[in-house]
């Protein structure tokens, strides 16, 4: 399905959007933001964040030793 953002990324920034296009674009944006926020709140996200912290700390330690 064609996204309202396809037209936005295609057209000149000064070109006004129709009210329908505008509403569709905002709905799609809200869905994107909600999807991303839901993932951020997931246990998987917390686990991987912790793993990254540990790996970065380990690297920093190794670097300071060498």
């Amino acid at each position: 399905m064609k996204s309202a953002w396809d037209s936005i990324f295609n057209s000149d920034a000064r070109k006004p959007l129709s009210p329908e296009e505008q509403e569709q674009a905002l709905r799609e944006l809200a869905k994107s933001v909600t999807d991303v926020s839901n993932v951020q709140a997931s246990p998987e996200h917390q686990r991987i964040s912790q793993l990254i912290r540990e790996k970065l700390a380990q690297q920093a330690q190794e670097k300071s030793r060498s």
Partner: protein
Amino acid sequence: MPYQTAWSTFFDLYHTPLRFAVLAAFRRCNWDRVSEEMLEETIADIVVSFFKAEFSYDRENGKFRNYLRQLAAWRVRDKITQLPKARETLMGQLDGETTDVQELDSSRPPDEAIEEKEREAYRSALLTTMLEDVRNRVSPQTFLMFEMTKILGHSPEEVAEQFKVKRNVVDNAVFRVLGKLKELAAQPEYRKEYWL
């Protein structure tokens, strides 16, 4: 843009596209069932390698999405070669004909369902990145009015009452944020990334 930020912000925005990029890369190595543990470990490796000294993304040389996908392919290959038994199994599946994991990268057509999910997730992450960019370009009140009406779904009247302003102030905030988003969408940096 995501490559100009802290690792936590980058990961907050790009977790899902990375997840699908990793799944797609494993699949290209004939690895259909990846444990959640291995998946998470590989995603963490990508974020770490992205932010450490080996970071080498140059936007003049291509799309950020392609760079992330390449990074995913490298880290997946590392993971597979680090697991001797797994590697053996993998080679066994191919009757010993292939001796290098890199050769496996192109041995299998991409799984369209995973690729499509990765594309969708990347676009969602990109739109969210743009909105975060706009957050720094308008007043906190304007952004909050927009966020409350268009992202959190409150009615404009309710938001106007909460801020003790007229309804048209809320409408103007939405108009202003949308205008900024359109301006960003016209920038080559974002435009290049949107068209996958």
